[in-house]
């Protein structure tokens, strides 16, 4: 098929008619910038075919803002040697005319004819939808739609299938499909879609399970039954062998015997206890009496002791008295010695004292002489100093004031000099006998006067001259001078000097005096460091001291030549003192001892007497006797009791009561245990017999066998169904597989076309299609791109490429089936890189040898090497006729 021309009028921006003529076989390339109307052309072609002429859903074709527009499309194409011309107008005065060769068709007839030829349908109402657009929907690709394959292929599915066509029908029309259905139905009886057992099959399996567990239960019950039967047999045997004999009777007899024996022993024990109580009582009494006797004996002993004590005390007194004389003698001697030593010591002391005092007196006398001399000197100096100080005082002059005065003086001098310089000097030299008055002064002869102020010079008979010294300063200066002078004089007066020189002189004098004073003061200091008065006082003190000393000396005796010295005398005194002390002590001790001894002797005597009286009394004697008698009796009794007790204890021990008790316990327990066991056994036997009777009635074995039969039957059924379903599954899978293989075979042509194009892009790759002819999996060599994958999961760019390749393959297929294949690509392959684009152009070129392709793009550069001249839309628009 070849589209020849396309005319548009009143379609969107093409208000004025646009003519696209001389469309060629192969690729027709239209380029133009955005909004140059490329997509409008595509829309116009689509509307011409897809939309009914009467449709009211094509407003989008009208020029903007022109609701009265009547979009009109006319196109012509050649098909199988005939020219078809379609003319359609929409919305306003809609119409549709189709001319096929020389035949004319109109309205819906025309539209249906086109739909049949191209392989699409019309939407029932409203605008056309992809679902009905069939083959053109697949081959006329709008912007941004090329990567979408599944949808368009789905909608064109029937057409594509019928293009592959008659051969696929082969597959469907054999008996196989019917068989498959029947088999599915039968399989469905026993298996679900997912292969789980259902229906009878499941029931059989479940029954087997239930049966098995039931069998297990019954087996358990039967085993329990058997065990219980065995148990019953065992118990019966035991009862026969053990319980018949009633062995507990023996035990009970033994118990009785032991009991009797034990009772006897217990009797003995009671007796024993009684005896022991009595014995205790007797022993207590024994103790009491013994104590009593002991007391008596102790008293007697006590008496003897006291006798001895008395004797001893007496002895003691004697001793003391014997010592007395010696001690007295010693004491007297010590006193004597002491007295003499004391005298000697006193003497010695006095001697020493005298010597010392004398020495002191002599020294003091000498010292005093010196001191007196010094005092005189000091007094002299003091006077001198006083004089000097007076002088100094009188001479003193304030040196600061003097300095000030000096300043005044110099100031005055300066002032005078200034006056001199400032003052008007009047020198006169008068004729003899003449005089004039300068101011108040009358002068004559030669002279000079300084005038510090206005002065009148009175020249007799001439007149007066008033002289005004220059400079106002003069007055001030005079005043200053006067002030200074006053000050100077004042100060002089204050200082009480006539002149500065005098003052200075006084300063000098003062200085001299000061140094003199210092000198004298130093000398005085040397003589009387603490002052003259102190020295005087010291002298007086020393004097007094001297007097005292002399007084003392008078009282002291004269020196005795060979008197002992103090030290020796003191030593002797010390010794004597010690000895005296010792002797006194001894005497005192002795007195004390004697006193004590006497006391003790007296006490001892008293005590002895008292005790003696007591013990000699008759009452005491009687008690003693009684106690002895009683004790003897008690001893006898206790002895006999003890014997009895011991004998009985041996008896008791021999009887071994503990062992007896144990025997009793043991045999009692044994008897009880045996009786218990026997009774339990009896109960167990009764219980078991009852139980087995009931169980026996249940016919467990038969039940089990019946259940086993059921289980067997179910298992057989189940196995049967397993075999059958396995066979069904096998058949079904084989049928499906074979069918699929056959289908693939028949799809081979499409596969061939796909691979042809694909290999231009990816060598050795393949794109599989499923049984609905949808592209499914892309398989590539690992080096060429990113491996294998579902087409849906490829990159956008690659999907565009797959989209185009698939469409070209479908187009080839359709062409072989004798269908018209016009391919329209509006701005396809925008996401392909340069490399891929190059390959795609080769593919397009190849396809274009078989199909007419209308290619729209806004990138003319991309398509330069496609082998066709691009037609610029803008140029076309401009060239409107």
């Amino acid at each position, binding site marked *: 098929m070849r589209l020849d021309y396309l005319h548009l009028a009143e379609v969107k921006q093409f208000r004025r008619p646009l003519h696209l003529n001389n469309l060629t076989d192969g690729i027709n390339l239209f380029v133009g910038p955005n909004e140059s109307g490329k997509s409008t052309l595509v829309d116009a072609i689509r509307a011409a075919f897809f939309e009914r002429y009467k449709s009211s859903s094509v407003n989008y074709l009208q020029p903007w803002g022109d609701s009265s527009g009547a979009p009109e499309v006319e196109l012509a194409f050649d098909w199988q040697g005939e020219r078809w011309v379609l003319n359609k107008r929409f919305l306003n005065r809609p119409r549709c005319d189709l001319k096929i060769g020389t035949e004319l068709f109109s309205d819906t007839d025309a539209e249906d004819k086109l739909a049949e030829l191209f392989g699409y349908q019309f939407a029932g109402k409203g605008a056309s939808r992809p679902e009905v657009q069939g083959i053109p929907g697949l081959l006329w690709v709008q912007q941004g739609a090329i990567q979408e394959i599944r949808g368009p292929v789905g909608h064109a599915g029937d057409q594509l299938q019928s293009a592959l066509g008659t051969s696929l029908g082969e*597959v469907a029309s054999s008996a196989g499909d019917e068989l498959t259905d029947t088999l599915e139905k039968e399989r469905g009886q026993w298996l679900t879609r997912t292969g789980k057992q259902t229906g009878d099959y499941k029931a059989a399996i479940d029954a087997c399970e239930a049966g098995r567990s039931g069998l297990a239960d019954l087996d358990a019950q039967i085993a329990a039954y058997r065990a219980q039967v065995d148990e019953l047999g065992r118990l019966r045997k035991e009862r026969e062998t053990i319980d018949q004999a009633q062995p507990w009777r023996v035990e009970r007899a033994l118990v009785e015997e032991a009991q009797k024996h034990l009772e006897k022993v217990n009797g003995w024990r009671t007796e024993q206890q009684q005896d022991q109580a009595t014995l205790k009582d007797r022993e207590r009494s024994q103790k009491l009496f013994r104590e009593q006797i002991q007391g008596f004996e102790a008293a007697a002993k006590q008496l003897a002791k006291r006798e001895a004590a008395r004797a001893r005390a007496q002895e003691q007194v004697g001793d003391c008295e014997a010592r007395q004389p010696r001690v007295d003698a010693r004491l007297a001697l010590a006193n004597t010695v002491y007295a003499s030593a004391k005298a000697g010591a006193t003497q010695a002391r006095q001697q020493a004292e005298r010597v010392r005092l004398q020495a002191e007196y002599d020294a003091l006398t000498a010292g005093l002489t010196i001191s007196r001399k010094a005092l005189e000197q000091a007094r002299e100096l003091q006077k001198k100093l006083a004089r000097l100080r007076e002088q100094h005082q009188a001479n003193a002059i304030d040196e600061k004031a003097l300095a000030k005065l000096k300043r005044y003086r110099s100031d005055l001098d300066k002032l005078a000099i200034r006056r001199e310089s400032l003052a008007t000097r009047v020198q006169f030299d008068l004729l003899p006998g003449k005089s004039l008055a300068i101011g108040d002064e009358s002068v004559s002869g030669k002279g000079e006067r300084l005038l510090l102020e206005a002065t009148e010079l009175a020249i007799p008979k001439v007149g007066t001259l008033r002289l005004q010294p220059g400079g106002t300063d003069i007055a001030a200066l005079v005043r200053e001078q006067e002030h200074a002078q006053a000050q100077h004089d004042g100060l002089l007066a204050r200082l009480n000097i006539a002149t500065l020189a005098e003052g200075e002189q006084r300063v000098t004098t003062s200085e001299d005096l000061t140094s003199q004073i210092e000198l004298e003061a130093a000398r005085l200091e040397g003589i009387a460091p603490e002052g003259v008065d102190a020295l005087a006082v010291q002298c007086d003190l020393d004097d007094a001291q001297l007097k005292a000393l002399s007084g003392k000396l008078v009282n002291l005796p004269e020196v005795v030549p060979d008197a002992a010295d103090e030290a020796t005398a003191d030593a002797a005194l010390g010794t004597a003192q010690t000895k005296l002390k010792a002797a006194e002590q001894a005497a005192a001790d002795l007195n004390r001892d004697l006193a004590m001894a006497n006391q003790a002797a007296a006490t001892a005597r008293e005590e002895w007497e008292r005790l003696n009286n007591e013990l000699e009394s008759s009452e005491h004697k009687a008690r003693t006797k009684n106690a002895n008698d009683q004790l003897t009796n008690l001893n006898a009794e206790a002895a006999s009791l003890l014997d009895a007790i011991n004998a009985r204890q041996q008896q008791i021990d021999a009887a071994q009561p503990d062992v007896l008790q144990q025997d009793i316990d043991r045999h009692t327990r044994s008897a009880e245990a045996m009786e218990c066991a026997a009774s339990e056994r009896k109960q167990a036997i009764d219980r*078991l017999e009852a139980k087995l009777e009931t169980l026996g009635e249940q016919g467990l074995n*038969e039940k089990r066998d019946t259940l086993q039969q059921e289980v067997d039957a179910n298992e057989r059924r189940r196995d049967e169904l397993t075999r059958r379903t396995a*066979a069904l599954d096998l*058949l079904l899978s084989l049928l499906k597989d074979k069918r699929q293989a056959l289908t693939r075979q028949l799809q081979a042509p499409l596969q061939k076309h796909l691979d042809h194009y694909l290999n231009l892009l990816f060598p050795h790759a393949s794109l599989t299609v499923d049984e609905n002819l949808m592209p499914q999996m892309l398989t590539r060599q690992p080096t060429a791109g990113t491996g294998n994958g579902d087409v849906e999961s490829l990159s956008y760019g690659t999907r565009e490429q797959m989209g185009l390749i698939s469409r070209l393959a479908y187009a080839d297929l359709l062409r072989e089936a004798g269908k018209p294949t016009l391919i329209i690509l509006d701005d396809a392959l925008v996401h392909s890189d340069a490399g891929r684009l190059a390959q795609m152009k080769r593919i397009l070129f190849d396809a274009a040898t078989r199909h007419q392709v209308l290619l729209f793009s806004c990138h003319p550069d991309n398509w330069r090497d496609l082998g066709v001249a691009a037609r610029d839309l803008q140029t076309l628009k401009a060239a409107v006729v």
Partner: protein
Amino acid sequence: MGRTYRGFAAEDAAALSDARFKVVERLAQLATDEKVDAILVAGDVFDAPNLSDRTIHRTFNALAAFPGPWILIPGNHDAALAESVWTQAARLRAIPENAHVLLKSGVTEFAKLGFAILSAPLTQRQTHDDLTAWFDTAETPSGLLRIGLAHGSVEDQLPEAADSSNPIASDRAESARLDYLALGDWHGTKCINVRTWYSGTPEQERFKDNSAGQALIVEIDHPGAEPKVTPRPVGHHRWIKLNQHLTVASDLEQALQALNALPVQSVVDITVGGQLDLTGFEHLQQALSAATGRQRSLVAHLEALRVEPTEDDLASLQADGYVGDVIADLRERQQAEGEQAETARNALVILAGMLRDHRAEVAK
């Protein structure tokens, strides 16, 4: 009694169970007809220790036809334990007067009938002692036949002995000076020596072909005389096991003939292996179906049978398109081993059947 039959359809199993009661009745009738003095049952009267009351009642009722004494001892299946079928039966008062159940070892005299029974019943399920040992020293009144009644395995006899416990010396009859020793436990009739016989079970209940299904008529003239033993068939159903291997077409003919020649009301187990074409397979299935109607029970095992369709078979199937491929695939799979081959065979048979039906539909 009370034995159940596994591996059979429910109704067949019921019928076989029923047959056991009938055989007792027949025994009783035979005994009455032959005018015997007593019937001895050497144990395993009951198959299990815990049976329903009904079974017990039926069993003892079946004894009715022979009024003379029935002398029974417990065997290993119905041992006289503390609680057993016998105690149950006693409680139910099911045991008729003419049935003498000897639960203890000992001598039981039947002076009027001229014999004494030395019984060695089993009081345990298994014992490793020879319970007949005391026979040797047991005294019986002179003039009475000494008849031993015991249950167990005679030593040194068949290698596949039923029970290796409960041993019985093979020369017991001689050492105990018995006129006759009646033994139970083995299912087939077996003569140990001239005075020692196993009567076997009166109604066969297994495929082992060992002369089961008989009763023994024993005639002894006087004490010391040699017993005359006559086996008499009393069983109803024959148990037959067949094994056929098919290679060529004629084999099938043979097999079918053998099938048809079987005595009716038998219990049949038939295994067919080898290979067969489709038509032959159909024939076989039809024959088996028919045979099932004639026999008491028929169980067929066809797992090892391969179906090989011939060219004619295939042509007649008219399997076109990919269905033909499927058939070829299945034929190949049949060559494999084991379950796979069987599944493939089954699938092929199903497919063939369906195609045939389909063709029949179309033809209509």
